[in-house]
């Protein structure tokens, strides 16, 4: 039996890439400097933080979970990294990531050991990380040291490309390899598809779940490092709402919130799509034809999310009415 190409599924999976391409085409035709290197690089530089937390979120969601703590964990990471920045680039980086991983460890332990729903666990961690960040920073921004190379992590260029974008690209490369080419990656998808079945199959459900939250925490910490390096300060009150931005990016990227299916590449497209919407808004205002305030970006992002979600709902309903037992028994040839 040959598999028929399911165009609906293809659209759900790669529609976001098409939409991104269309948006970029629109922007490049309409605005003079849209494809200029300055614009491209600044979009990439700014969105790399969101890309990192969305990557972690993507893995968490593929297991059927959710991580609401990424925003405040990033804020915590930025504060810790800022404190460590006088010791140099690597100590700053390591400290921020370690803070994130610590939060991720706690999330993972509470979810796998105490069996508390991820939603609640990470909601609590969101509060705890935010409180810890504020305590450490004494309710203020913490200036980073410019004496060391730390700020290069946010502001520097390497081979003409922004360092944070390179970090993000590397993380997505690793994420893609892990998901597609390692057994842990497949286990992530299997657990999200059916936790019971995965357990019966002998997959290390607890360990993989734990690792996914650990990774999400670590990536959020890394995003915090970039935040601190980019803006020159650890920001304890930054990161509000980042988690929902990340969820939106993952959903727009076609990953099902029910778990079991998803893609790292389309998540990146989802992040960029939401970022480019903002960018185009800026250009549009620059043209002066209409004046849309920056506030429109969240309205437009919301509408994008709505469109994607409706499309997904439409497709899953079609799929639900698709091939069934009766239709496929012919493949069973005794």
């Amino acid at each position: 039996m040959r598999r028929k190409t399911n165009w609906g599924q293809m659209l759900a999976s790669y529609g976001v890439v098409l939409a991104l391409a269309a948006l970029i085409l629109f922007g490049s035709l309409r605005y003079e400097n849209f494809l200029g290197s300055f614009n491209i690089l600044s979009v990439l530089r700014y969105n790399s933080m969101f890309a990192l937390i969305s990557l972690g979120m993507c893995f968490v969601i593929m297991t059927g979970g959710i991580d609401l703590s990424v925003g405040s964990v990033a804020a915590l990471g930025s504060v810790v990294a800022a404190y460590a920045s006088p010791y140099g680039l690597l100590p700053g980086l390591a400290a921020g990531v370690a803070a994130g991983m610590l939060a991720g460890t706690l999330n993972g332990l509470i979810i796998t050991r105490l069996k508390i729903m991820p939603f609640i666990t990470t909601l609590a961690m969101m509060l705890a990380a935010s409180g810890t960040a504020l305590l450490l920073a004494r309710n203020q921004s913490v200036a980073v040291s410019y004496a060391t190379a730390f700020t290069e992590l946010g502001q520097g260029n390497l081979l003409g490309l922004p360092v944070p974008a390179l970090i993000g690209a590397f993380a997505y490369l690793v994420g893609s390899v892990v998901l597609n080419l390692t057994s842990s990656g497949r286990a992530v998808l299997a657990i999200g598809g059916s936790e019971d079945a995965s357990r019966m199959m002998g997959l290390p459900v607890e360990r993989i779940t734990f690792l996914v939250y650990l990774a999400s925490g670590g990536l959020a910490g890394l995003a915090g490092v970039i935040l601190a390096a980019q803006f020159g300060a650890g920001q304890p009150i930054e990161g509000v709402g980042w988690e929902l931005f990340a969820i939106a990016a993952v959903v727009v990227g076609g990953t099902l919130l029910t778990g079991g299916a998803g893609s790292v590449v389309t998540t990146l497209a989802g992040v960029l799509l939401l970022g480019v919407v903002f960018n185009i808004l800026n250009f549009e205002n620059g043209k002066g034809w209409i004046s849309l305030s920056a506030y429109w970006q969240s309205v437009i992002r919301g509408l994008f999310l709505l469109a994607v979600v409706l499309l997904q709902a439409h497709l899953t309903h079609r799929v639900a009415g698709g091939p069934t037992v009766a239709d496929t028994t012919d493949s069973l040839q005794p």
Partner: protein
Amino acid sequence: MSSPVLSMQSINKTFGGIAALTDASLQVEPGEIHALIGQNGAGKSTLIKVLTGYHQRTSGEVTFEGRAFEAASPRAAQEAGISTIYQEINLVPQRSVAENICLGREMRRFGLLDWPGMRAEARRLLARFKLSIDVDQPLSQLSTATQQMVAIARAVGFSARLVIMDEPTSSLDDREAQVLFTVIRGLKAEGISVLFVSHKLDELYQVCDRVTIMRDGRTVQVSRIDETDKLTLVSTMLGRDVARTEGRTTGFGAPSRAPGEIVLRANGLSDGRHVRRVDLEMAEGEIVGLTGLLGSGRSETARLIFGDTQTLSGTMSVAARPYHPSQPADAIRAGMGFCTEDRKIEGIVPDMSVADNMMLALRPTLGRSGIVDEARYRQIVTHFIAALGIKCTGPSQKIRELSGGNQQKVLLARWLAMSPRLLILDEPTRGIDVGAKDEIQRLIRSLANDGLAVLMISSELEEVVEGADRVFVLREGLSVADLPRDGLTEAAVLSAMAHGVGHD
């Protein structure tokens, strides 16, 4: 005789002080197909779960392939060579066939997954069962039977020495089951042992070598299947002599009245998929049996009548008036009730009380302006608890704490409280112990005697033959027989199920 591949001796297991297994034992020989049977609650599943490391035994000895064996987890059991294929297939529907076969023992090249290798491995394993499917398609796109083959291929791929199958044929039709048996015999030929759990006795005679019977957490008999007759199996399983007077095995009595007015008439019903052309007619005071093999469209027909799914074509009338339900609420307004085959998934609201569950359908009709009329409410609930003999601590007990039989009675009461004229019962006695089964069957008859029209769907032949006043047999979505009570025999129903009468 060579030494057994598996030996479990004196196994005890308690849950919170309550014994689930008492001195249970099980012994499986190499290359043997061994049946494990028992009623619900006899301890079969617990025994298997102890073996596969899902539960830890309280005490007892297990040896596997001659060595002391203690699985800490299903994973450990799988690695040791014991693979289990559970009732609800334990694969991941969204993932591909190849992944499902190889998950947990992925092939690697240079440390990364070797996809071409895994696809080839999946194809190779499936080919042993003469199965050729696209291993890249998601499992969910395959039929249940094919999914089961994938599960078996997975087990064989894990070099299993013992494959446990928990009611593998429960969602297969006859043809598919035969394919499965061929595969099982193939496993035997390769020296792999199979532990086969099933409620369908005929199957045991087809494939099994020996049988272990469990009851109340104990092993009560082990024997060769060809030396054991069916009646012995059943009576040992039930722990009592089933040969009752008059040769009846069900609780239905004879009808005390003649059928009255026609309540429901359905012509040429179709949902475009499972139901292709079904005709039905039922009168008040009549128990109408609707039967057919699994997948014949029995339950789907009930769902069409109840408005849970929509008809593509065909007409229905209730009491001679046209009837087009678009949702269950329409059916309920027309005087219908529906107890589905799966109580847990579609029947009970587990966290609610017996009273709330019972009043779920009736509630909107009680009281003024949506406010619950407490007194009236309590009166109705106590009435039904007494009338149906529901065993519970009181109306406020959570329904999930009740036994299956009592839950079923609460669900019956949910509809009886509506004073319906037509009740659809899908597998009304499935998963219910013998005593309660008898009681429910008697209740169904007395309801019919009071004028209710009952549409009873059952896969138990004797229930249909002894209980129904008229039987409609479906085959592959088509009505193939309309058998009156006179001359209704198991042979007649079977022949209609298998070959169809009249049409085709």
